[in-house]
């Protein structure tokens, strides 16, 4: 592949990275903490491509019409050129044309039976995230599940809480409110989910984002159901997809 083509590809890829970082869609793929790294990465790619273009052009004009044999500096990419840089086009097209959505119900159903709550938090009790004060406090689904399974003090029993997630139905038709939890990027996503029961749940389809208010059904998370607690829903409303669709 010619050097010019490589430079164009590099520009496109750098531009694609900057675009998704600046407009926030990068949160569908990676953690927010990668923001500055992605900006720097896009900038370096563009810098390297522009530097190469400028050097090429300057060399042309310096040499002018003179028929000078400069196979040395330009032969390199030809002699050892591989076709691998063509692959760089794939993420560019994927980002600009398809802009894949954040992982959703399909990933929840695809995941195995493992649960975040399989492992007891060390020193049970002190490791839980505090429940925010006030009426119907908003909890992360991951925190809710961990507490529902391991909190022996029963802090959640009889308490109305608010959860935000998307609807995922399994093959048996049981509806869950779920989120995906990521450590680094979407490739390592693990689902956290709460079974929901109550009126109004049935009108929402897979991947619909909802805000639910309800109470934990005590002792509903057992080893037999892979530690998935059940929430008795008092209120369910549609909500917008949050800017950051994942939990950490």
């Amino acid at each position, binding site marked *: *592949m*010619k*050097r*010019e083509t*490589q430079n*164009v*590809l*590099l520009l496109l890829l750098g531009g694609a*990275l900057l675009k998704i970082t600046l407009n926030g869609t990068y949160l*569908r*793929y*990676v953690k927010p903490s*990668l923001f500055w790294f*992605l900006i*720097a*990465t896009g900038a370096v790619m563009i810098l*390297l*491509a522009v530097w*190469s273009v400028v*050097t*090429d*052009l300057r060399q*042309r004009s310096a*040499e002018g019409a003179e028929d000078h044999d400069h196979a*040395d500096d330009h*032969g*390199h990419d*030809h002699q*050892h050129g*591989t076709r*691998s*840089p*063509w*692959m*760089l*086009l*794939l*993420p560019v097209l*994927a980002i*600009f*044309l398809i802009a*894949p*959505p954040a*992982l959703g*119900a*399909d990933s929840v159903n*695809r995941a*195995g039976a*493992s649960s975040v709550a*399989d*492992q007891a938090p*060390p*020193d049970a009790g002190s490791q839980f995230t505090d429940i925010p004060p006030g009426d119907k406090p908003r909890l992360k689904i991951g925190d809710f599940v961990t507490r529902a399974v391991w909190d022996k003090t029963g802090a959640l029993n009889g308490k109305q809480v608010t959860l935000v997630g998307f609807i995922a139905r399994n093959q048996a038709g049981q509806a869950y409110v779920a989120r995906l939890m990521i*450590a*680094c*990027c*979407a*490739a*390592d996503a*693990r689902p956290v989910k709460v079974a929901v029961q109550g009126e109004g749940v049935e009108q929402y389809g897979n991947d619909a984002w909802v805000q639910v208010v309800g109470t934990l059904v005590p002792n509903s998370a057992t080893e037999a159901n892979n530690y998935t607690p059940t929430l008795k829903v008092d209120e369910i409303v549609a909500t917008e997809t949050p800017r950051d669709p994942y939990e950490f």
Partner: protein
Amino acid sequence: MYANIRICCPLLFIAIPVWHYCDVTTLDEAKPQMPGHGSAGRWRIGSLEVLCALLLTALLLQDQLTSLLDAPAVRTGSTIFVAVCVQAMPFLVFGVLISGAIAAFVPASFLERAMPKRAALAVPAAGLAGVALPGCECASVPVARRLMQQGVAPAAALTFLLAAPAVNPVVLAATAVAFPGKPEMVLARFLGSLATAIVVGWLWARFGKGEWIAERALAKVQANEGQSKLSVFFGTARHDLVEAGGFLVLGGFAAAVLRVVVPASWFDSLKGQFVLAILLMALLAVVLALCSEADAFVVAPLSMLPLIPRLVFLVVGPAVDIKLIALQAGAFGRGFAARFAPLTFVVAIVCGVLAGFLVLGGLV
């Protein structure tokens, strides 16, 4: 259709100067390459023309493409593909910048003096040096290649390649966070990975043949006399980025496809099957191609498995996985990857199991 036109317009603004640029350069480039065909090369279909045609086709068929990819499994796969690429690119860029800096600013004589002469000593030294590169595996491939090219013994450079992504402080800290209350897991991972890197290095020093590594891997980026150091730095970094980037994307693609195809129920059927669990976790580490900073978070919750199979996953993953194999084939040649990947895979399983028995003790 309306959206297509909206995208096409700004694209034209880019395309016209690009076209001009390629026009100027192709003309000149064609001459020394094909004497006598200079004028015929004027409208030859080159890679740039192909690229433009591809981009245009993709834009025009955008709606059809999007609806074609609208199956849930394909959507999940494409998200994972983009995620792997986006996550890995910063590390790759970091790696190629280091690679460029080594080529431009570190004289070969310095490295020769700094490394022990005998391979038996150089290998463990390179393994420990891996502690200093806080990146994941994508960064270490271009760096190892540049070290080799600057005269470091291949065995030592390969040890560095295996050690750097697995034993650096960032990865070890992530492991400690993922396994709260089990600090011995961090020690076991450190020992298992370091042992893998050193054993593979020694084996390569003893049995490895120079010709297995593709010639182009060791060829210096041609430095013209009078070319400034800065220019060598930029040139090397750009060259490595374009080349390794392509292979990284290839690896990410393979990982995304396998992720959708391999059923997660593999994990669930492993309760109580120790040997099978070790083998399957090692295979999964290759297939899933997780970043070494994230893999601990993925296996930590699999409490139905004993710790040793999970440790094997953590030792194998940073040493051999599908995107690393693609990167290595690109950097060192296919013949190299075909020998190196199976060797590393076996050594990593053995070292992981041994480190597990030593540190964690028994079938925990």
